[in-house]
């Protein structure tokens, strides 16, 4: 019982982390993190829409 609980908890978290990694561009390119951090409002936008957004500080 304890073994199963431990396995489910730790392995579930590793799996969740791996799943999250799929959607992080900065996994492969460091620069992606810089762009994401400096302009987070662009994160989910297509490049064409980006210019229409009001500017704001990160």
């Amino acid at each position, binding site marked *: 019982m*304890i*073994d*199963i*609980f*431990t*396995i*489910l*908890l*730790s*392995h579930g*978290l*590793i*799996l969740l*982390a*791996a*799943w*999250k*990694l*799929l959607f*992080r561009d*900065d*996994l*492969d*390119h*460091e*620069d992606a*993190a*810089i762009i*994401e*951090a*400096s302009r987070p409002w662009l994160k989910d936008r297509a490049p064409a829409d980006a210019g229409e957004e009001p500017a704001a500080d*990160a």
Partner: protein
Amino acid sequence: MRDLVLLAFIGAILALGFRRPFIWVLLYIYVDIVSPQEIGWGIITSLHLSLVTFIAAFAGYVVLDSKHNSRFTLRQALIVALLAWCGYTTLGAAFQDSAWEKWTWVWKSMFFAAFLPLTLRTRLRLESAVLVFALAIGAIAINGGIKTVFGGGGYGTLTLLVDDNSGIYEGSIISTAAIATIPLVLFLARRGSLFPPGRAVWLFCAALIFSCLLIPIGTNARTGLVCIAVLGVLLMRQVRHRFAFAALAGAAMLVALPFLPQEFTERMGTITGFRGDESASTRIEVWKWTYEYAKEHPLGGGFDAYRANSFTYQLAEVSGAGNNRRISYSQVTDSARAYHSSYFEMLGEQGWPGLALWLALHGLGLWQMERIRRREAPRRADRDVWMHDLATALQHAQLIFLVGAAFVGIAYQSFMFLLIAMQCALWSQWRLRRKAPGRPAAAQMPDDTRPAPRSAINPV
């Protein structure tokens, strides 16, 4: 049930790796530490999981991954040199059968440690490697922690995920590994971006740290208690209010004492009285023997050279109590006793050249992490707090390992080589950031104006 869960997990991670091949590298880190093929009972035990994930990680990088910002550092060269030296001593090992058996897992640990930094070329990759490392050790620590709370501990009897007191599941080794992981858990709790700091993350990390602290109690490993003391001293470097921390730690220990199992307190009481303890007496004798052996065999005797040892010594036995206390000495003869120290393990097996390489590997690591810590210290306006905190965590983990290693033969343990690999990757990334402004990645923006990556701007 266990087999199904583990196989489903490995299958899912393998599948995710087709989209991001780096995930296979993380899978190998997990397999290397946890050994799921030993946890299960059925089909999983017959699978060559280690080999499959090793090939996936390696091929994934070579064939599918970008090599941008991958660097081969001096310490990786030292690992390769140590690997080559171990191969050479194995060829002429005194005990060929056991030497080749040990070689089969040692070369993988070292090769992977030399390879891993090449793949850890972004901050997120490094963070995810630290995360999987901590969760993999955490899987064993949480299991042991819960069992200890429910009274399942004892020297050599605490059954962890694997019912086998060997490898990382051996009491002293998991104690050292678990305590060495605590600085990394603290780093993830403060600077993690995959699981950003928050109430749930802090709660989990606190529980994980508590579990890690319980492992030396559950396994009754004296090395673990020494490691906890080292951790306490190291944390004093980090905390803002040192006196308050020391007072709280002291108070916590006083409160915890009555709850500790009697077997544990009795065993810990033998730390200072080594003369009356066979295990401790043996250590001293083995270390003496190894030193003499290295004089005769300066190039080492190959893996498991300790099998050649045999010595007789006086063991003090105390009987009676109070005024009737009597000390009698008996002669004990021991043979083929393990080194009980990584330093002597290296000296006996790899001789002076091997020990020198191993010490250089560690010494250089401590120095590199210290350089990063100083350059990114709080007084620097353009500091990179993420790199500072990770360097601190990796340095503390290594120091705890190095102290624990004085009492346990863990010179080639893969968890230590993984720590070294993560240090190499951090050093490489830091050098790119600070030392080579002409490179494209660093040249996009000057350091002072460059916004910190998302992982570095999380609230503390």
